[in-house]
């Protein structure tokens, strides 16, 4: 038994820097975990307590600023869990992202009215999957092979419906672009009310509306669930609502154009078809469509939706509406705004027991498909949005953007974001580059990356080659008002450019709604498998 070592630390700090780094990391991780948990905990209550923006943000702006009668954001993936990062500019950004904002229609989408049709391969999915019509007798295996080949299918669950017949729930995992192209053309159309786009939240006995930059519009009692302190009002479980509205000044009405949450249930992942069905019923049920009263200061109203066929489009375009019209809004009927990078779709098909083995093969193959998708995670979506807005002078006072005095500037103006490498980009994901500022100019004007800058489109205009922007002749005007949160989107700029030069007309839209005979033609092009 040797003597015991009794040396103590000599002229040394008790804790090493490495230990300190470990502990600081741990501290940060714990803090972040707590933040993440708190975020997940309360959405609606934090939405209400979010500090108000100064009212001055809405006062007439000193510099000439184009009036944004339209939100110019592309749709963004929404995640409720991020909702309570409610601090400063970040908060405003979040609110802005919560609205499912339409892209501008700059191309006529193929076949605005067709149901369940794959434009590319000309395959009618409903018939195909159920083995009806032209697809009678096709083997299940070949169908699966097709889906796997196109990277978007797996069989997730097999449910025994009754003896010998199984229901297979297909979970299609694929990029949004593929999926939307595949099922792109189920649409609704409506006449868009003119007014301020906002986000209405009812919770905890009060209703609050906020503009897309996060600033407060109204704070009022409403008949929405938990929207007022009225005794008879429902204050039950998770009673909060988040609606996407346009506030129409003239009749002091909130026109509901979409719904995010109703009574605490998230509708992010539901199809537009379902959202509108639900909204219609619920708004009436809660008396939110009634006129103003003590516990209900503003009327809510649904915007009439039509199927996007000749008749529907015509009604939306010219039919009587109780509000000032500002363009048409198109919705994709069957698709939801999913927050996942991979998109799922459940299709149920009854099959024979013998086919189950084949599904297992498909499961294995779907793994490959998944890997493929992960490898190509940066593949971009392009212009296949879930909602599109279009307008012309017949259905809107504001086809071409005006400045704050209501004048149409001589040249088109655009707002772009300065990147750290001097590039000028749009608010898109990924951003589209419109130009470039050299370092000298940036230094001279003391601009920094992230600044939003206003330009006018000069004589050279926007030049295209093969459908891609090749050149933009831009003239620098100045920085934008600080209330602006985002640059213009590509589609907004393009729409404005076309509105000035070669506008997309209603005839183009109507012409795109194809006739039944055309559909027959398409069906003949089916890629035959097996």
């Amino acid at each position: 038994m040797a003597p015991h070592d009794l040396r103590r630390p000599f002229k040394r700090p008790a804790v090493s820097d490495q230990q300190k780094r470990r502990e600081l990391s741990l501290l940060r991780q714990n803090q972040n975990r707590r933040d993440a948990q708190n975020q997940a905990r309360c959405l609606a209550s934090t939405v209400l307590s979010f500090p108000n923006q100064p009212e001055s943000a809405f006062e007439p702006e000193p510099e000439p600023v184009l009036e944004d009668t339209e939100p110019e954001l592309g749709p963004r993936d929404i995640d409720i869990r991020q909702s309570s990062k409610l601090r400063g500019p970040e908060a405003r950004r979040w609110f802005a992202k919560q609205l499912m904002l339409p892209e501008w229609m700059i191309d006529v989408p193929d076949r605005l009215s067709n149901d369940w049709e794959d434009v590319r391969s000309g395959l009618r999915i409903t018939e195909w999957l159920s083995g009806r019509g032209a697809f009678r007798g096709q083997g299940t295996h070949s169908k699966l092979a097709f889906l796997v080949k196109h990277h978007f299918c797996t069989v997730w669950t097999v449910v025994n419906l009754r003896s010998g017949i199984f229901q297979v729930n297909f979970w299609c995992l694929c990029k949004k672009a593929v999926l939307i192209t595949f099922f792109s053309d189920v649409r609704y159309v409506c006449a868009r009310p003119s007014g301020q786009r906002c986000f209405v939240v009812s919770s905890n006995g009060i209703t609050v509306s906020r503009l897309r930059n996060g600033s407060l519009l109204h704070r009022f009692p409403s008949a929405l669930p938990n929207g007022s302190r009225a005794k008879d009002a429902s204050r039950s479980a998770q009673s909060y609502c988040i609606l996407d509205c346009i506030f129409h000044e003239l009749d002091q009405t909130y026109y509901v154009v979409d719904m995010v949450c109703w009574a605490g249930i998230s509708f992010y992942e539901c199809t537009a078809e379902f959202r509108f069905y639900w909204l219609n019923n619920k708004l009436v049920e809660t008396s939110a469509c009634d006129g103003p009263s003590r516990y209900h200061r503003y009327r809510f109203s649904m915007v009439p939706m039509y199927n996007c066929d000749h008749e529907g489009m015509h009604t939306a375009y010219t039919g009587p509406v109780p509000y000032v019209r500002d363009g048409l809004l198109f919705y994709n009927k069957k698709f939801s705004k999913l927050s996942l990078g991979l998109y799922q779709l459940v299709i149920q098909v009854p099959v024979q027991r013998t086919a189950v083995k084949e599904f297992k093969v498909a499961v294995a193959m779907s793994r490959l498909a998944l890997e493929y998708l992960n490898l190509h995670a940066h593949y971009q979506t392009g212009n296949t949005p879930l909602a599109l807005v279009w307008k012309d002078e017949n259905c809107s006072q504001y086809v071409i953007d005006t400045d704050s005095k209501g004048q149409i500037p001589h040249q088109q103006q655009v707002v772009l974001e300065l990147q750290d490498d001097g590039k000028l980009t749009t608010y898109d994901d990924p951003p589209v580059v419109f130009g470039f500022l050299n370092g000298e100019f940036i230094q001279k004007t003391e601009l920094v990356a992230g600044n939003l800058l206003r330009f006018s489109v000069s004589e050279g205009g926007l030049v295209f080659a093969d459908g891609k922007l090749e050149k933009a002749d831009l003239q620098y005007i100045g920085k934008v008002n600080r209330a602006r949160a985002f640059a213009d989107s590509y589609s907004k700029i393009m729409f404005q450019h076309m509105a000035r030069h070669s506008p997309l007309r209603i005839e183009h839209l109507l012409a795109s709604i194809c006739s039944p005979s055309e559909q027959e033609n398409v069906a003949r092009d089916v890629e035959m498998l097996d």
Partner: protein
Amino acid sequence: MAMEITQILLSAQSVDGTVRKHAEESLKQFQEQNLASFLLSLSGELANEEKPVDSRKLAGLILKNALDAKEQHRKFELVQKWLSLDVNVKTQIKTCLLQTLSSPVPDARSTASQVIAKVAGIEIPQKQWPELIGSLLSNIHQVPVHVKQATLETLGYLCEEVSPDVVDQDHVNKILTAVVQGMNATEGSNDVRLAATRALYNALGFAQANFTNDMERDYIMRVVCEATLTPEVKIRQAAFECLVSISSTYYEKLAPYIQDIFNITAKAVREDEEPVALQAIEFWSSICDEEIDILEEYGGDFTADSEVPCFYFIKQALPALVPMLLETLLKQEEDQDQDEGAWNLAMAGGTCLGLVARTVGDDIVPLVLPFIEENITKPDWRQREAATYAFGSILEGPSPDKLTPIVNVALNFMLTALTKDPNSHVKDTTAWTLGRIFEFLHGSTVETPIITQANCQQIVTVLLQSMKDAPNVAEKACGALYFLAQGYEDVGPSSPVTPYFQEIVQSLLTVTHREDAGESRLRTAAYETLNEVVRCSTDETAPMVLQLVPVIMMELHQTLEAHKLSSDEREKQNELQGLLCGCLQVIIQKLGASEPTKYVFMQYADQIMNLFLRVFACRSATVHEEAMLAIGALAYTTGPDFAKYMPEFYKYLEMGLQNFEEYQVCAVTVGVVGDICRALEDKVLPFCDGIMTQLLKDLSSNQLHRSVKPPIFSCFGDISLAIGENFEKYLMYAMPMLQSAAELSARTSGADDEMIEYTNLLRNGILEAYSGIFQGFKNSPKTQLLIPYAPHILQFLDSIYMEKDMDDVVMKTAIGVLGDLADTLGSNAGSLIQQSLSSKDFLSECLSSDDHLIKESAEWAKLAISRAISV
């Protein structure tokens, strides 16, 4: 085999490598093929007086190693193997071992006593080998001195191996009696007395009952004190070791003896040989440790009942103790500052003086001040150094009010000494003292600042100048700068260091490039200081921190260019990469904390990540902990964009999670998984199969250090929160694990403080997992999958509430889980929740908590429950 084992054992010690290797392999083969016969041969060899001593010794050693190992799981395996051996084999082996204790060969006896202790360590807790202690004690009365000595040594080892609770008090009494008798002055043999004294050191833990008996205690103390006065130095040293052990184990019993002990220790410090004197000083350091702990527990609130009262031994001994310690300071060794392993009287005395200052506070200052004043200007460097060291030692403990006036006077002198003193030893201690001044008397909490507008520049200049001095001095100067920077940590938008920032950073980088930066851990100190300077920098200097990014990246890049390194060079490269990754981690965290700097920093993210990946690639089997830590910071800063690095990074993440041996690496990697989950959210999904598999393996491993397990549970929560209902497929694996861990952690009765602390960490991990899972499934159509788990989870909450030993963190997490459960399951769990104790007593206790975090979580739970119930 028995014939040839002697030869194999001798060959295994051959100078010829090939012979040795061959022999080692034969032994290993033998062990694997037939353990019983292998162990029998070894014990036979050890007991055989006709065999050479070298083969006997090695036989004993191998036998010992077949019974015990450092790693817990290996140890467990070996114990199981021994227990499953045939009883007759074991009896034979044990007989051989006991027989060897009587061998005339000392090495054989000594080896046998260690092996006996190992066997006892396994068998006594199993109530086997009951006759061992009796037969050892009967040896004590045998005449031959060497048998007595070996038996006492065996008792000593036995007390080290066996826990006191498995030995009955009767045996304890007999062991202690035998040992103390062996120590007695009447014992004629020094060997026996030494063995007995060393045995007592281990047996002290068994003497709880005996120390409560005045007579027995008096007797033990008298014998120990007498042993400190024997002519044999080894016995004196061992006796002082016993006193040191008694000072911490039986602090509350010391009052009657403290005066005598002071006299004994003072004499030893002044007159005895260094190993003895060092133990004597250690006695007082150990008393300081005890009193600091007790006073800390008092926490200034003297009405609180502390388990152990403070006897203020140090305060009472102060007038005599301090002069004794000051004397030791003058006994420095010439080159102690260059010798890493040095530990001498001056070092021990100064260290003890520092502890005394922490124990008594202000009272020490007037006792030390005259010594400083008298010696600090003397021509003999020993006096100047001793005075400076005394000053530096008392800077922690006394109040700033007491110290600040003195420091204000001394500061200038110190700065001059640091540049002008001819002796490097003095400069070393001076720089260290300046560091201590900045550590304890500079910062936002100190009312009167030591560093002012007027002297800041001078201080910085002197420290930067010193960083060019000898490595040991430069290292202390870096340390001083570290604390200078730290003091300005929360100074606000403008720091007094700003004007010198660039120069400081440049000087530190220059230091890291010094040829001799490998000495006195100078390079490490320079990087650590750079890290602190960056950590405490303000927005004003953010552009300069940004400029540092490419510089450090270049340095890291250069370490990657070196190829074909020797193992020594590889180790150095590894260490340097660690420092650079650490520095980048700090920079990333700093720049990532504010939007504008983060934005600019992001341009480097790809390159930095690439460097980290190359650092990983440098090694084949393990991952670099520092690089892993830095990657966590990077993931947090880059957010969702981190996804693009995952395909390449993933394998290292997995490797880190597999590192059972270096559990810190595993723990850090688990933390990084959390960072990645929060950064990537659902994009982490493709990697979750692999991560979850690894985490589940980690949890079921008995090799992995237990401290990593709670964070792994928390990590389940992080994953679920990130991937939401996709966690579904892991539920069937994760939930049972959580459930069994929960059951284990619900019961704590009889656990010690350390165990309760661990249990609370475990509970917190489990609860964070539940929180994450509930929150992840919220608003999902698959919520119903969680319903079957709800009763157990509520039961778990109830049971930890009933145990009444959870800490605040667990309380907060637990009540939050209740809220998450109610929120996610809603009316499905309404009646279950209403039946639970947690929703009533526990909730109302939390609602009235003073801790606002607990209260906040409780408010959440209340809201969620009222919703769930009202539907």
